[in-house]
């Protein structure tokens, strides 16, 4: 029993990590970033290149790729998203426009990766060492993902709810039209939020590449999983993403252990449907 709880939390930690960046981009910058998963994959490949060609440990790669992810997303926002935000008459229009644009961006990133790395499977071994957690042996790299996701989640929550800067971000998330009345630079807040999301995607890419096999075209898998977690947790809610991610991990593990591994997917979507029926805006979503 305890082993399943631990395995479930370990799996869910990865889901939470994947979803947090997307929920911030969606919740604050109002951009439904469909290329999120491909940004993750790009970071996976970058980590792989740094590790296999330059012998740079993936943990050190975090120090390089997280700022790189931040910078990349900042540039994307300034060049591609800003004109959309400027011309969108309302939030709905921005959401639709951003979905279309990031859908295109998805293929651009994918195409570039295909040219450089081809369509083959990539994987390597790092920190694949057994760690004993309360009697259950888990992989070191997966444990790292959980620890990182809890730390980052905690840090984001503290920043969002305990700092002035976080309050500005929340104000923009809550009411982008009224925030400027209080002297808030909404454009800057949205830009920062989008870039933080990019940095999160890079973090996920580095960590996930340690234990998961990836291909240049696998980004959509991450985007789908992240979307489920984000919608389940309530859009824009970091706490929601963490809770929903862990919940899905636990559901998958328990179903695999006690019912049938073949039903994990069905169970995930079952929970998804049920929760949306009860709480249409997600666990921590606001109406």
């Amino acid at each position: 029993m305890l082993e399943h709880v631990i395995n479930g939390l370990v799996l869910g930690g990865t889901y939470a990590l994947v979803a947090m960046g997307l929920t911030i981009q969606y919740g604050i910058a109002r951009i439904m970033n469909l290329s999120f998963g491909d940004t993750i994959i790009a970071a996976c490949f970058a980590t792989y290149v740094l590790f296999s060609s330059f012998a740079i440990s993936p943990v050190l790669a975090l120090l390089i790729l997280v700022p790189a992810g931040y910078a990349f997303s900042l540039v994307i926002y300034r060049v591609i998203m800003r004109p959309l935000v400027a011309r969108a008459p309302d939030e709905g229009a921005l959401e639709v426009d951003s979905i279309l644009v990031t859908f295109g961006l998805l293929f651009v990133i994918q195409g570039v990766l295909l040219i450089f790395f081809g369509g083959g499977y990539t994987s390597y071994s790092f920190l694949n060492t057994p760690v004993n957690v309360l009697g259950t042996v888990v992989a070191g790299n997966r444990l790292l993902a959980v620890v990182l996701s809890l730390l980052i989640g905690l840090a984001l929550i503290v920043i969002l709810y305990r700092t002035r800067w976080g309050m500005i971000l929340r104000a923009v998330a809550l009411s982008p039209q009224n925030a400027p009345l209080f002297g808030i630079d909404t454009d800057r807040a949205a830009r920062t939020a989008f870039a933080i999301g990019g940095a999160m995607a890079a973090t996920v890419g580095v960590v996930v590449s340690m234990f998961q096999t990836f291909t240049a075209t696998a980004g959509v898998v991450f985007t789908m999983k992240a979307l489920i977690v984000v919608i389940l947790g309530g859009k824009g809610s970091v706490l929601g993403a963490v809770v929903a991610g862990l919940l899905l991990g636990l559901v998958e593990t328990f179903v695999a252990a006690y019912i049938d591994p073949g039903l994990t997917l069905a169970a995930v979507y079952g929970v998804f449907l049920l929760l949306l029926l009860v709480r249409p805006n997600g666990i921590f979503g606001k109406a």
Partner: protein
Amino acid sequence: MKHSIAEAARAARRLTTCATAAVLAVMVGTSGLEAQERDKVTIGYAVSKSGPNAGGADMTVTPNYELWVEEVNAAGGLKLPDGSQLPIEVIAYDDRSSAEEVVRAVERLATQDEVDFILPPWGTGFNLAVAPLMAKFGYPHLAGAAVTDKASDFVKRWDSSFWFMGGSADYVNALTEILIAEREAGRINDKIAMISVADGFGIDLVKAARPSFEGAGFDVSYDKTFPPGTSDFATILNEADNSGADSFVAFSYPPHTFGLTKQAKVASYNPPVFYLGVGAGFPVYPKIAGGSVEGVMSLGGIDPDNELNAAYRAKHEDVVGRAPDYWGSVLIYASLQMLGQAVERVGLDKAAVAGELSTGTFSTVLGAETRLENNQLRAINWVGQWQDGQFVAVSAQGGDGMAAVKLPKPGWE
């Protein structure tokens, strides 16, 4: 066209210097002109360059197409019965891992591009999807990366289809034989833990495996399928371990194969028989696993003492930049060699090439006398095992180009 007419005119002018030769030229004129009109052979294919199938296609199929075309063109082109040679021109499409797209692309290759030959896509399902079209347009269909037990039925339905990778029952029965021998030697118990991916390959193999294992008196004590998107195998391996089975069998795709290996190492799960699906025969497998994979079993395998195969592997590494896998690659390459030799013997007529493939004997990387039985290649290595850094073909006792299987599998480190 213009070019070839000018060429013909020039050739004719040269011939007029001799009156008799001129008469001769007129006599053979019609057929001669036809041959001269053609300055290349076009070969088309649609494979998955993007989408979920890209990984498999990029490992087993596309590199061999490229290698073969490059080799043939470097040697002056495809040889024809009259001794002349024509370079190959390739028309390649990306089917984006979509069955509709692959059908559309093959139709386009046949009707618009009017290529001379069409090479098959990657995957059992995709090969079945294009098989009726290939037959309709009369193209020989050299189904390479397709595992099916129904090949004999398909040959009846489409007599220009050829199947190069055997069927699920072949692979499973070869494994069962090894397991029976191990059980008799007292090295394993009669329990098997088996998992399979709920997708084409896994479904086919597990369907063949259940009756095969049970017929041999094994008790499949853990038998579960998992969705293709599964990336975490901690719970599954835990349960497999708890089932008390000495043999672990997984019919998995590469991402699962790699994930299972990593998780087995972390959990120190080391059953005497550890058999995995696609991916365990990739040359990068030991590196991905991060260390020793000694004793891990899977489909395929090579004879390390076979010089033809060694030469092929060296060439593949040289031209493509990486080694071929230890299962399907060599079969695909052999099918292309057979196509080339069939053209050399009977020319570019599609029906004649299909007939020659059916009945001829070819010298390929698999051996000097490769031939098909009922349009199917049977000289396939069914079970392989990692032994001393090589993925070698094995059988219970060894012999006949195969090594003896070494069980129980040693520890992970």
